[in-house]
């Protein structure tokens, strides 16, 4: 049965023209509910932790660390990590360092298009507090105001060894069922949208891109 949504449950999509509003959904995101049986959920988490597919979207200078990660020396395939070309197929978003406002718009769009369960690793110091770009006119200072972050790896730049350690840590968190970033995004959706629109002034995309 198709659930009919009341007006309070739908998004405005005010950034779109009237013609475009017909083309995009205005439904809100929905939170993930774990399986009622804990053993099934644990098994699902074990499977998720061992098939982390990284979105191939180099959002900053840290993207350079993903190349040695995938090649022979560090070989992240040992951990079930693979690169995927499209957000629809990937489950891990590695934010590679600083995010400019122009990139943040693409990050939001890609993150919302990723299908759950999805996890975000923030790489480097810049997503934490701005790093060396703390006074820049075009790079954000606190990444967790816009997208929920599951794991931080600090450093400028972190070496691939640290990234491997971070992936193992993320696997531990997923297996313990503590990676709830996507659910936090759904629960505090209006807060995140307000923060995003405070920074991105030309909002010409749907409020939730999925």
């Amino acid at each position, binding site marked *: 049965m198709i659930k009919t949504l009341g007006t309070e449950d739908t998004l405005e999509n005010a950034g779109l023209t009237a013609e475009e509003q017909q083309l995009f959904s205005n439904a809100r995101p929905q939170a993930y509910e774990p399986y009622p049986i804990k053993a099934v959920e644990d098994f699902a988490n074990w499977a998720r932790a061992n098939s982390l597919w990284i979105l191939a979207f180099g959002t900053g200078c840290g993207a350079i660390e993903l190349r040695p990660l995938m090649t022979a020396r560090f070989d992240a395939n040992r951990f079930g990590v693979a690169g995927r070309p499209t957000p629809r197929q990937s489950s891990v978003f590695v934010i590679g360092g600083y995010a*400019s*406002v*122009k990139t943040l*718009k693409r990050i939001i769009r890609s993150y919302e298009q990723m299908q759950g369960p999805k996890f975000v690793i923030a790489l480097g110091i810049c997503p*934490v*507090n*701005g790093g060396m770009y*703390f*006074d*820049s*006119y*075009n*790079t*954000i*200072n*606190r990444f967790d*105001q816009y997208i929920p972050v599951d794991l931080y790896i600090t450093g400028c730049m972190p070496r691939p060894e640290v990234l491997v350690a971070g992936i193992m840590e993320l696997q531990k968190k997923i297996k313990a069922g503590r990676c709830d970033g996507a659910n936090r995004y759904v629960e505090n959706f209006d807060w995140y949208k307000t923060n995003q629109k*405070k*920074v*991105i*002034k*030309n*909002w010409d995309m749907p409020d939730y891109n999925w």
Partner: protein
Amino acid sequence: MNETLERLQHHFDVSDITVRKPGLTTLRVGKESAEILIRELRDREGYTHLNFITCIDYIEDGIFTLVYMLHNYDNQQTLGVHVDIDREQPDMTSIHTLWAQAWPYQRELREMYGIRFPGSPRLDEDFCLEGWDQIPPMRREFDTKKFSEERFGHREGRHSEVPRVHMKMELYPKRGGDEE
């Protein structure tokens, strides 16, 4: 090189000819004759390569200085043409008809300094700063730190439990724990 400069001095109001280092010379020319001089350099004097266009903000003098860096492959000389334009009315003749690659530079200068280049293609499209609603950010009166703190927020540093840092903050609180 010297013959070129002599010919230019004969025809144009060039001044401030400076040899910065072997192979790099700069000169200053008036705004009106700048485009003709650059055209002359390209067509007659062999400066066929446009390295870059950039801008310097001399806020004290109320001018922007545009720098057109040209290169001659025959004698391996680089020539910088400095053009002063008024800071209040920043506009300049477009040179995208001389070099097709000039328009992204001009588009960037429009976005970062607010300099107008009438006729330059796609001049008013956003380049890096999408939806920018302030004064152009590379102008020196733009306070980038203040803007960053207002719009992007500020995260306080962590509280330190290291005894050395703690005692410094106890002893020299007004100076932020700085001994000097």
